[in-house]
């Protein structure tokens, strides 16, 4: 196993981590500020991807597709929040689970109704296709490098938003004590809708970015949703920093696990069996990581003890 291979896999882990961060950031914000479990976050990912694919096909511009993804996901999120989720903040987590589970059904089949059952086409723009030779001689996909860059920029942007803007102050205060900020005159309704829309937009962006190198199809958001939940639990709910670290941890564990575990098994098993067993353990590795973290720190790495 060459150093170049390991280095490339580390980059891959970073890239997948960064995409997970886009999903997890929205999810953790929503849970931290509003206390809402949103199973339909994956549907927003899907909406973003479909909006981007449809817009890019109609206009020929990937950039417009991205803008459409942000707008569509934010709009869908805002609609979800105003019409349904707003009534559930005071309710049990169970009711939120049921409602957002129902929303998954509505969105998935709704998207299929609108766009048909076959996957849509979305491609990497010409300017970003192909590879770039990095120091050390590794040829890495230009598009994936762009993804890493975008993810880091968003992370920086979110940090600035939360730490240095008025909205961020309200968000942080809202996480601490919802009633207090309402009493202090902040318009809770608008704050919540804004937070939800931001989270949704991030999910939609993730969907569009990822859709270019994966398949834009119904149900594409569910696997990412589960991973995003794992990330926010590892990182600590409500903590953007936790979501960032957690996402990178999960991305790296997943990618490096898929590389090293079959090799590990190959030490004492023969070819196909080792590959199979290694792959099986690799698929469980993220969950094992989560359990390990929770056993040691039951509120996640950066979560507050509630």
């Amino acid at each position, binding site marked *: 196993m060459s150093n170049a291979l390991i280095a490339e896999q580390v980059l891959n882990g970073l890239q997948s981590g960064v995409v997970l961060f886009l999903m997890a950031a929205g999810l953790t914000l929503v849970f931290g500020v509003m206390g809402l479990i949103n*199973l339909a976050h994956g549907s927003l990912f899907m909406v973003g991807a479909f909006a981007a694919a449809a817009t890019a096909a109609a206009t020929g511009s990937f950039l417009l597709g991205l803008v459409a993804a942000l707008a569509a996901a934010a709009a869908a999120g805002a609609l979800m929040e105003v019409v349904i989720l707003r009534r559930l903040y005071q309710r*049990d987590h*169970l009711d939120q689970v049921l409602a957002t589970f129902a929303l998954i059904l*509505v969105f998935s089949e709704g998207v299929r109704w609108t766009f048909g059952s076959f996957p849509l086409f979305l491609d990497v723009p010409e300017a970003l296709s192909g590879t770039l030779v990095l120091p050390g001689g590794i040829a890495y996909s230009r598009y994936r490098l762009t993804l890493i860059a975008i993810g880091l920029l968003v992370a920086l942007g979110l940090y600035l938003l939360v730490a240095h803007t008025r909205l961020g102050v309200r968000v942080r205060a809202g996480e601490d004590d919802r009633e207090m900020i309402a009493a202090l005159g902040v318009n809770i309704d608008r704050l919540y809708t804004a937070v939800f829309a931001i989270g949704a937009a991030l999910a939609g962006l993730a969907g569009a970015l990822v859709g270019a190198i994966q398949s834009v199809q119904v149900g594409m958001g569910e696997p990412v949703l589960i991973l995003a939940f794992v990330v926010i639990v590892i990182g600590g709910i409500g903590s953007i920093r936790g979501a960032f670290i957690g996402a990178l941890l999960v991305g790296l564990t997943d990618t490096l696990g898929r590389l090293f575990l079959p090799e590990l098994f190959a030490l004492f098993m023969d070819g196909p069996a080792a590959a199979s067993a290694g792959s099986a353990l690799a698929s469980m590795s993220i969950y094992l990581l989560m359990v390990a973290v929770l056993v040691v720190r039951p509120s996640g790495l950066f979560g507050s003890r509630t």
Partner: protein
Amino acid sequence: MTRERALNALLLLGVPLFALWAVVVEQPFMITLATKVAILALAGTGLNLALGHGGLVSLGHAAFFGIGGYAMGILASHAQSYTPLLDGALTIPGTTFMPIIWLVAMLASGLAALAIGALSLRTSGVYFIMITLAFGQMFYYFAISWPAYGGEDGLSIYVRNRFPGMNTLDPIQFFAIAWTWLVVVLLFSASLARSPFGLALNAARQSPLRARTVGIRVYRLQLTVFVLSGMITGLAGALYADLNRFVSPSMLSWQTSGEIMVFVILGGVARWCGPLAGALLFILLEQVLGPISEFWHVFLGIILLLIVLFAPGGVLGLVAGRERVRV
């Protein structure tokens, strides 16, 4: 007679009567539907013990459902092919004898629940939800990659397992078995809720801190109810695999966990017959809406949303209002 009691009676009498009617009009598929309702209600009742009475929101209960199913599948498939499970110092043959299969299913899922619960109950709130989900996923991925028992293809069992004195292939007789189990478990859960254990659990659910200060060992209570809950759901899994004559990793998926939870919430959490009402409603919706449109999931989702928004206590909550039957 309170409204909830009336509705409970309606459910408990209505479903078997419906099954008997289906025998009369020779619609065996209807009996199969009723059996499906009974088994899913059983799974939901198991979950409800932990969820409703214990306040433990487990999103990984499909793990127990699937373990029960696979216990049945593994035992029966070895019996079918006349190969023993273990052939060494100790020879363990397969079996198609239902009572043994049920026992093994409950033991296996109980042990799994003990392990999962012991680790998960160190967390609380949404962390608990997530860690149970994680365990469910681990079992799911394991089952997919386990080639010996079909992996993703699953295991087909060509004959239904045996119960002494009955022809289990006859739909109404199998329904009777499933329904009997449901009633037994319902009675058990009722007596559990009334017992000192149940009362202490209730107190722990409402305020763990307060319960601890009066000396209640919350962790121990929660673990016990989690194990019991897992065992019952495991039993339901074995019955479900028997009904379909098929077990596959999809029984372990988080979507299945979600569906079981949906039945419980739909019917009314911590209501005695809540899971039964929820399972019945869900199956009815599936059968009624399915033929209407290819995209019937949209309508199902909308109906579920309306129920969540305007019937917060589930169907039984809607009917019974604030009053609760002392069960």
